[in-house]
């Protein structure tokens, strides 16, 4: 009987099976940010266990509220900073080099096919785009990960999704994943890994695959995962070329060992044909409540937000800028762009994208999570509406009483021009 990629990764990492069905895995990368790590640090200190299992396998960043907005967030940053320093964690990213974790860590080459990755952050599933098992966990799991380098999981079942057809103009990875979440519903993939296959996924670059895997959690998924291939090798090339003696084909061939076998067992197989898909957005407070933008074009907006671990990457900024170029934000609409990492910011600047945003009236912020989770840099007031490229539209997510409509960067850009939720196709 064949195995899925997740089963293969579990087999390669299992350290113990204390009870039938519970696998304790060795973890290759434990990622930490300043919101969920400080309480773990404080607890380790109070237990007299202020140490880490392997400082080279721990990656830390201050990204959620940065630069700090108040004394409390400054204290969180300080706790993470001092902990990284005294535990010799070299891969620590502070103000000046920090960016949104799920954009920054892949960019640094920390995630590789076949890896196990945990973080105290639900969107850790993003890293499944590299053919890794990457799961969001809570602070206690994180704490044990930091101390012992292990984490316990029930072996998840896998849902296989084949994305087929040809992507219509104006439809992007974000529209595809929103359509998939609509199909699965918000808990349709709970305790499941969602495996993405098919020609549409194969032809996507890593930015797009990360957008797809990023939102697996919005269907309840433990993780999303794509098969590592030439795109993966291309993205990681500067970090892995020595391992493969400068032979890219050898890397791609080696990645095949992780691929799900043709006779792997899936709980469910779903085929999603994107050929007739239109640009979509969420309505209301659940990410599975998805509608065509053309059906909700009378909804007025107060703010556009382009950024986050879902859609704050360079290709996202390029698409948004191509629509925004030469336009102005509609009267009364605020626009915020937050490039997800300093490298993205710099490239966007070199390509003239930042100027395009600023000329249109956008505020461009430093890389941070900021408004995505309603903590800083663009929190909504009661009754306000935001066209957003983020991943979560829960009640209160971007500010109490606010409404968040999730969409692609193209759709957010178009909505900024009209001041209403807008199908981007007429601007392409």
């Amino acid at each position, binding site marked *: 009987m064949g195995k899925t990629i997740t089963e293969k990764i579990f087999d390669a990492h299992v350290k113990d099976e204390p009870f039938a069905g519970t696998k304790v895995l060795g973890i290759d990368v434990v990622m930490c940010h300043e919101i969920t790590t400080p*309480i773990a640090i404080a607890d380790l200190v109070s237990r007299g266990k202020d140490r880490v299992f392997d400082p080279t396998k721990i990656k830390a960043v201050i990204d959620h509220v940065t630069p700090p907005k108040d004394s409390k967030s400054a204290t969180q940053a300080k706790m993470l900073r001092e902990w990284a320093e005294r535990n010799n964690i070299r891969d620590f990213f502070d103000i000046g080099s920090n960016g949104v974790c799920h954009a920054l860590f892949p960019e640094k080459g920390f995630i590789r096919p076949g890896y196990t990755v945990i973080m105290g952050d639900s969107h850790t599933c993003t890293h499944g785009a590299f053919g890794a098992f990457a799961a969001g966990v809570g602070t206690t799991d994180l704490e044990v990960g930091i101390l*012992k380098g292990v984490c316990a999981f029930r072996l998840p079942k896998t849902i296989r999704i084949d994305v087929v057809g040809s992507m219509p103009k104006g439809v992007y990875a974000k529209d595809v994943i929103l359509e998939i979440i609509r199909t699965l519903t918000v808990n349709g993939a709970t305790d499941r890994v969602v495996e993405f296959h098919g020609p549409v996924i194969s032809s996507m670059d890593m930015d797009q695959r990360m957008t797809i895997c990023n939102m697996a959690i919005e269907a309840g998924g433990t993780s999303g995962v794509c098969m590592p291939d030439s795109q993966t090798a291309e993205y990681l090339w500067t970090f892995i070329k020595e391992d493969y003696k400068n032979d890219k084909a050898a890397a791609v061939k080696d990645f095949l060992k992780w691929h799900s076998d043709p006779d792997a067992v899936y709980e469910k197989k779903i085929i999603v044909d994107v050929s007739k898909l239109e640009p979509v957005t969420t309505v209301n407070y659940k990410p599975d409540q998805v509608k065509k933008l053309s059906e909700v074009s009378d909804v007025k907006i107060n703010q556009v937000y382009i950024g986050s671990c879902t859609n704050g990457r360079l290709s996202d900024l390029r698409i948004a800028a191509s629509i925004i170029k030469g336009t102005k934000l509609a009267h009364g609409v605020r626009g915020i762009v937050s490039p997800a990492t300093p490298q993205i910011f710099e490239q966007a600047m070199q390509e003239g994208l930042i100027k395009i945003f600023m000329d249109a009236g956008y505020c461009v912020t430093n890389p941070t999570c900021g408004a995505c989770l309603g903590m800083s840099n663009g929190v909504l007031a009661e009754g306000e509406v935001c066209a957003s490229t983020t991943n*979560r539209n829960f*009640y209160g997510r971007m500010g109490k009483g606010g409404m968040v409509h999730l969409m692609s960067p193209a759709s957010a850009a178009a909505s900024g021009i009209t001041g209403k939720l807008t199908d981007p196709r007429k601007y392409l």
Partner: protein
Amino acid sequence: MKTFGGPVLFLDRSDINTDEIIPAKYLTEVTKEALAPHLLEDLKLEGFDPQGATLKNSRVVVSRANFGCGSSREHAPWAFEVNGITVVVAESFARIFRQNMFNCGMLAIELSKQELDTLFAECDPSSTICDVDFANKTLIFSWGKGQSKSVSFTLAEFDNALVNAGGWLEFADAKY
């Protein structure tokens, strides 16, 4: 092991997410106790008062499907814990929330939709007490003048071990 059981808070809605349980703006706190006044502050549920006496006195929450979805923040179980709530009963849980509960040595108990329908229909929300017989894996709901209902539940062996150990750190530290 923690203590389980007491007055019940019924939350008759599915998909209650961790942003509703404890809003992101309180995530800058670095002690669990500081979360206490803000539990369920942003819950979208008709007639629910986050400052009301029902919440303050509760020790057990009974809710619907996909409880604890969204953000991985363990601040959600902690916010329950510092308010004395160590048991959540629901039709289903989001994976991370359920794991966080057991990792803290608390109980996330799944019952069937039918069982929950019965509890929501029959129990008097203002007077229901839930006793937890952990050894026999039974919940005993009692309300009004001597009315009661027993429901049995199951736990995975691992989850049971975490509750007995007092949490995952205790378990893992002794073993790995």
